[in-house]
């Protein structure tokens, strides 16, 4: 059946879906895979900006599904990473311009050319969410260690689990501040898995990192930083590699000793 379609969603806005899509797709592309990202947030286009491709948009997702432009005209190839492509969202239309069936048809076409297809879902659980989830083989839910984000993640999990087809759901915990977790002032990755249920697998823990904002400023994802490393680890886990999650929230004995020596 060709490439895998992975939808990145969250329920709540502002938790880092687009940042995750940009950084994760760049990391997977760096592993030598042909990757395409679809910005499904029609009307609120942003993935192009984070990926540094905003100057090169000519046609968009709506043009594609309405057959006003062929795929080759819509796809934008990343200059720095030739394996990485983007299908941008339309900025002038709204979510009703695309149907779930059109997304399925499009992704089936993309599967023939790409090994991984990431769909960046809009916030919310309405039409745009249904469009983004319809073609998915797998779902990644991005959340933050904050009560509102966890609650919305649970809501999205509930909606997905109520569907007939049981999509594998994996969690990315974004914007973790390990020192706050250590002080007991932030929910830990274990706490979140505990609350959301053991069926939900954690696929990555991304620390809060100012380099992500800097990378966004420059439109150059996959920064050489702690968060960038976390995304590269997630990419390897998506590829089936067994990479232990370094939560950095419960320092082991070695780390504690290292700390004593000011390391």
């Amino acid at each position, binding site marked *: 059946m060709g490439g895998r379609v992975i939808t990145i969603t969250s329920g709540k806005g502002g938790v880092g879906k687009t940042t995750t899509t940009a950084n994760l797709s760049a990391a997977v592309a760096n592993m030598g895979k042909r990757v395409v990202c679809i910005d499904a947030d029609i009307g609120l286009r942003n993935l192009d900006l984070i990926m540094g491709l905003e100057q090169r948009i000519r046609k968009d997702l709506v043009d594609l599904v309405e057959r006003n432009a062929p795929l080759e005209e819509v796809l934008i190839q990343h200059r720095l990473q030739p394996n990485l492509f983007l299908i941008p969202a339309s900025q002038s239309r709204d979510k009703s311009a695309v149907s779930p069936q059109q997304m399925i048809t499009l992704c089936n076409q993309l599967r023939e050319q790409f090994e991984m297809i990431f769909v960046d879902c809009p916030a919310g659980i309405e039409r745009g969410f249904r469009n983004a989830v319809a073609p998915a083989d797998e779902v990644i839910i991005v959340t933050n260690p904050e*009560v509102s984000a966890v*609650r919305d993640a*649970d809501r999205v999990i*509930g909606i997905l689990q109520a569907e007939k087809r*049981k999509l594998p759901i994996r969690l990315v915990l974004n914007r973790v501040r390990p020192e706050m977790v250590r002080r*007991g*002032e932030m*929910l*830990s990755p274990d*706490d979140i898995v505990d609350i959301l249920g053991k069926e939900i697998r954690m696929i990555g823990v991304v620390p809060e990192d100012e380099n992500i904002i800097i990378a966004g400023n420059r439109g150059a994802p996959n920064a050489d930083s702690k968060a960038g490393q976390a995304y590269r680890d997630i990419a390897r886990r998506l590829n089936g590699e067994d990479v232990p999650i370094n939560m950095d929230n419960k320092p082991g004995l070695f780390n504690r000793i290292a700390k004593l020596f000011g390391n």
Partner: protein
Amino acid sequence: MNGVNRFFSIFSRQRDQKPISAQEAKERLRGVLFSDRIALSPDQMAEMRNEIIAVISKYVNVDPDKVALNLEQRSLDNWLVADVPLLRIEDHPRFNTGEEADS
């Protein structure tokens, strides 16, 4: 936090595994997710709890203050799990009427 943990936490706040506001966040989330998942308001949940207690109390003595309703995820299904602590059955009204004793 139990006494032993509290004792050690005086020496090492870092090792204190019981979070402060994180623990509160966890408890509040458990409550709100329970209510979200079964789509019942807190009032409706209290009503359901009282009715469950009332039905069970017809047959056995329960300790109503300690009845706990929880939502558990088992595989992909949600389970409503009730912990119902029982009190001495001899104190139940059915033993006091004398009627049941005859039948």
